[in-house]
């Protein structure tokens, strides 16, 4: 219990000191996870939209698979990406293993199903409201998807947030494909794992607190955007 109080003190001291290593790690965490979230949205939102408005054979099977993939274990994703990016793997020639790019790829794969499955639900609910009006206007499928994505944009922010939360908190995938290399691929979670394995539990917990505060900040920013939108009945 003593180490919890110590950890809080240490966390505050770390932040106040503006430690260069800490800043580097925090920035890399944000860069990797925010990029992965953006990519996951670019891939996952159209998939979610297509499934939301589509009526096709095997749709319920697709829904089950999409929902199940939300629970992809990070270690498995990390391993798969490792096997592909390894020098002896099919994409080894790219030389991406142990780079931030590899970490972005792994996290993108990890959270794209989350973005797709959650956005599918959001867009399907909105489509239930708009469908008849859109058919009356003879919108094409592409126009329908564009309109749904735009009108659900504030709800989809929350979907993106769920993906970001998962990405920034996971350690299993990035430690395998990133290698936790100091000053290159070390992010908050792998740093926490490292300090834990060194038995420096107070520092590990302090880093955890910093991570939590960052996640809180991102959430608060999104929430304030949503509240502004809600006042205009855009949510």
């Amino acid at each position, binding site marked *: 219990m003593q180490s919890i109080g110590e950890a809080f003190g240490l966390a505050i001291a770390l932040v106040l000191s503006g430690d260069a290593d800490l800043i580097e790690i925090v920035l890399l965490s944000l860069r990797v996870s925010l990029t992965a979230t953006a990519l996951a949205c670019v891939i996952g939102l159209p998939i979610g939209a297509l499934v939301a408005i589509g009526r096709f054979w095997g749709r319920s099977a697709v829904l089950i698979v999409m929902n199940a993939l939300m629970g992809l274990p990070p270690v498995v994703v990390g391993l798969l990406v490792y096997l592909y990016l390894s020098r002896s793997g099919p994409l080894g020639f790219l030389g991406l293993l142990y780079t931030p790019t590899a970490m972005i790829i792994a996290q993108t794969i990890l959270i794209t199903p989350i973005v797709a499955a959650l956005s599918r639900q959001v867009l399907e609910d909105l489509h239930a409201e708009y469908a*008849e009006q859109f058919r*009356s206007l003879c919108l094409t499928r592409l126009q329908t998807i564009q309109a749904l994505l735009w*009108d659900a944009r504030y709800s989809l922010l929350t979907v993106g947030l769920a993906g970001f939360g998962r990405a920034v908190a996971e350690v299993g995938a990035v430690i395998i494909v990133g290698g936790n290399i100091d000053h290159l691929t070390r992010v908050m979670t792998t740093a926490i794992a490292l300090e834990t394995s060194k038995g420096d539990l107070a520092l590990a917990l302090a880093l955890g607190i910093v991570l939590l505060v960052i996640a809180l900040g991102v959430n608060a920013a999104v929430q304030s955007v949503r509240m502004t939108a809600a006042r*205009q*009945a855009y949510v």
Partner: protein
Amino acid sequence: MSDATALMHLQTRAATGHAPLLPLKVRDLVLRFGEATVLDGLNLDLGPTGCTMIMGPNGSGKSLLLKLLHGLMQPSSGRIEWGGDAPEQATARQALVFQKPVLLRRSVAANIDFVLKARAKDTGGLDALLEHVGLAHKARQPARLLSGGEAQRLALARALATDPEVLFLDEPTASLDPASVLAIEEIVNEARARGVRIIFVTHDIGQARRMADDVVFLHRGRIAEHCAAAEFFPEPRSAAARDYLNGRIVV
């Protein structure tokens, strides 16, 4: 509210170049939901101009008939024959205003802009259209914060933005205050004057008297009568219509 010059962009129907959609022929139209027959063998002929009021008690199938005519639903059997070269494209040449307007989560102007862009139309007419429905001063405001009357005027403006040849209205003024009702009616009348064919579902007998050229009275999934408004209101032929106009419960 209206300004004739502001409407210059709205084409008169003669200018479209298509073969006209009307007259409309409906033959032996049947709609079933499982065991229930909700529309039972309708036959209907509608002429090229004017405002047809569809009336009838709740559950008589008025809204379903409108959706069938607009192509949002398929009948179980029977035929709906619009004129024109490509009947399957009839929906695109019509517009429907729902009882509860479905407004996008955007500004007033963006709700219309969206339709103009979707139909690849010149967006230059947007301001005139908003002016026409009295919403120019609210163009930048969120559409879903409009009052009921304003929201319905916006829905109407959006329908008109598609330059429809036929305008369906499904109880658009139910639950609106009298001034809002009159504002809607004025816009609809102007559209009719430009040659837009109006097909209007209403429960408001006063409104029907003000606007109808002819009346289709539906009862229990059948057309109880279809005649000119001048004949219908003084002396309806069917007992159901008589009871309905007298405010008695009709099932």
